[in-house]
Every structure is written in C-alpha cells, then in structure tokens.
C-alpha cells in the first residue's frame, strides 16, 4: 500500500512550493470513507509526515481526518465557518507535531482527538487544561513496555472499535455525549434526567466491559 501511495502522489512532490500557483488536479485516490477504524495506512502516512515531512502522506491523513474533525468541531462551534477554522488549526498542528505521535502509546485517531480537543478547549471553552509534563523529572516513570505488548497496543484501534460496537446503547450514548457534546458527567445526568449515581455506574460499567472485551481478545 505504501507503494501505491508513492505512485498516486508522485506528481505532487514536484509541485513548486507556491501555493495556489497552478490549478491542481486532485489525485485519483478517493477519500477514505471507512466507518470502522483507522487504518494502519493512516498510521503509516502519519509516520511519513513525521519523518519525511511528506506532503502527499499528509494529504491522505487530511482527507480522512479533516472532515471528521470539522464534524467534531460542529458540535460546539458557533457556525460552519468557525468549525472550518478550528479544523484547519487542528490539522496544521497535526502536521507540525506529527513527530510526537507515538504508535506504542495509542492510536492515530486518539492522538488526533487530543489535538482537536485542546484546540476546542482553547477556542470554545477558553479555560486552561492543566496537564502533566512527560519530561518532568518529578514524573513517576512508566515501566518499560515489552516488545510483544507494544505490538498488541498497535493493533488496538480495530479491536477497540469492535469492542465499542458491543457496548449497550445507553453506555455508548454516555461516552458519546461526553466526547462530543462537551459536557461533564454531572450535566449528562441532568440532561438525561438520570441520578448522578446511575451515570457514574454506567460509565464504570462501560469501561469495565471495554477492558474485558479487549482483554479477552489478547
């Protein structure tokens, strides 16, 4: 597949770096439209963005995630124009920070989600989000991950998607509200007219089930 990409995009590499200087023919590569999981190809493309600053690979990443990140922003942005702006900001950061993506620590989609989330917090919520510093000398270091485990984490995206489809709808709904509607679990309880305890226990059940399902398949 890596070879296909190289062929499909070979034309772009010779494009002079004067943006919009010529009418561009879009490649024959159709936008990926997989509802299910990312796609090791996208992780490979992201790696090429990181190591080779490969614009063609970045286009592949953009064609998949750009529209989805815009849809994510639409949930909270004032209008389409703002969602578009926040999406472009997110994808520009994906390009700039690609070297920070570590496939051993999580999925490409998870990493892009964190960038989109932080852009949304800055723009829409305008609050600070304190974070730990991975280079902090006071940080308790994680035990080294064995190579076998790292491999399994690498395959997580597909298994995670499969596990999520097995969740009861009310649990999936809670997670979705949390990630998309940008509301904390206390307000979700109000929104759904559920006792707070019920919301908390559904969240706990959802994660317990996900851990179980993922654990079983290992």
């Amino acid at each position, binding site marked *: 597949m890596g070879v296909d990409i190289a062929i499909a995009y070979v034309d772009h590499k010779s494009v002079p770096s004067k943006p919009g200087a010529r009418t561009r023919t879009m490649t024959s590569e159709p936008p990926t439209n997989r509802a299910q999981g990312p796609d090791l190809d996208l992780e490979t493309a992201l790696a090429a963005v*990181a190591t080779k600053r490969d614009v063609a690979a970045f286009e592949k990443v953009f064609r998949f995630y750009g529209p989805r990140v815009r849809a994510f922003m639409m949930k909270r942005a004032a209008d389409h124009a703002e969602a578009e702006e926040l999406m472009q900001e997110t994808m520009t950061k994906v390009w700039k920070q690609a070297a920070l993506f570590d496939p051993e620590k999580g999925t490409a989609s998870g990493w892009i989600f964190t960038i989109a989330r932080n852009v949304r917090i800055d723009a829409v919520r305008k609050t600070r989000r304190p974070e730990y510093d991975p280079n902090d000398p006071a940080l308790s270091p994680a035990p080294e991950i064995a190579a076998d485990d790292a491999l399994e984490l690498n395959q997580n995206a597909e298994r995670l998607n499969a596990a999520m489809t097995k969740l009861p709808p009310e649990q999936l709904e809670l997670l979705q509200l949390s990630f998309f509607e940008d509301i904390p679990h206390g307000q979700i309880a109000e929104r759904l007219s559920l006792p707070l305890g019920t919301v908390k226990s559904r*969240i706990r059940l959802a994660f317990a089930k996900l851990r179980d399902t993922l654990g079983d398949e290992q």
Partner: protein
Amino acid sequence: MTISHHVSDALLLDYASGTLEESWSIAVATHLALCPPCRQRLSAMEDIGGAFIDRLDPEAGSESEDASWLAVRSAVLSAPEAPATTPKSPARDDSAATVPEPLRSYLGVDYDKLKWRPLGLGAYHYPIPTGDKSISTRLLRIPAGKPVPEHGHGGRELTLVLRGSFRDGDDLFGAGDLEEADEHLEHQPIATEEEDCICLAVTDSPLKFRSRIVSLLQPLLGI
C-alpha cells in the same frame, strides 16, 4: 510510591473529554504525573475519543474539501519548520523539582518555601488562584496526628496527598493517592503520626469554619 486510590472512571472521562474545570484538573493531572497506570487509562480513553472521531460522518462535499486541503497545505508549507519536540521543562533553580507538574507551575517553589497561612491548631493552608471562582483550590498542611481543621461538605471534594499520609476511617491515603468525595460521603481525614501531611484540596462546597468570626471575615481574608 505505591498508589492505591486512583482517579475514578467518571472523573477521568471528564478530564479525557476536556470538560473538567481547571481546578479539578490540577488534582487529576498531578495524580497522573505520579501514576503510570492512570496515564495508561487516560490514553485508552483518548483512543475511545479517537474512535468516535472515526465514526463521525464527514458530511461536506468533495469540492469544499479540496478548498480546505489547499488552505491547510499552503499553511503548512509556508510555516517555518520547527523541530516537533515537546518543549523541555526549562531548567529551574530548582527548589521546586520535587513538586510534579502541573502543580509546580501553580506554586513556583517547593512546599517548604510557600507562604503558608495559619488555620489554627497548627494547621496551615496555601490558596492557589485559578480561573474557577466557585471552586476552592489550596494546599493544606496538617500536623502529624491531627484532623483536618475544617473542610467542605455538601459538594465534590478531591484531596491529593503530596507528602506524608492521612487516614479516613479505615482507609490510608499516602503520597500520590487521590481521595474523591461527594456530598454523600461523611469523612474526617486525620494526618498519620509520622509526619505532617501536605495535600492538595479542591472543593466546590462552601468551606465551613468553626468560628463565626472567621466565617464573617472569610470574604475579607480571601480564604
């Protein structure tokens, strides 16, 4: 450091999704700095956020997609190439090196160099300013063997142990442990005998003071 009290799924989900306010997040993120298993749980939750992104309907037509792509392409090609590394923590002088981030940025110095304010009975506190006006964020320093002199009841309360330890009923909370209490939990933390206990306490319930005078002065004293 053996940590036995962790961030609950519901709280960590709020942090992962980005909905948790700054004050609570200081406690959660500082626990994360001390707790590799919770960092891994956070990463798994962020992957779930990513999986929801994958499932979103891209909706927009391909023509506007091309325009978006050209805009982003032009932005990244004209941007100066900076090495994409995490910003290294600046070398600090570094009396605060034992305080984990993000708490360290809020304090600036080590616990021993803070301007602690007396609460009476040998206890001290150090209020931490944040953007959340309705949430109280502060360090508490409780003398060995003594109870927390006053603390909130009726709302959510997060207590992260930074040094020493405290008991609450049958539970022992040591460095790195996070106690999550809500209005239903009657609790009375007591510092253990060995040493003074320093913890980060965040609460959205009004603090109840023993003395009526102190509570009248509370707004003036800013505590």
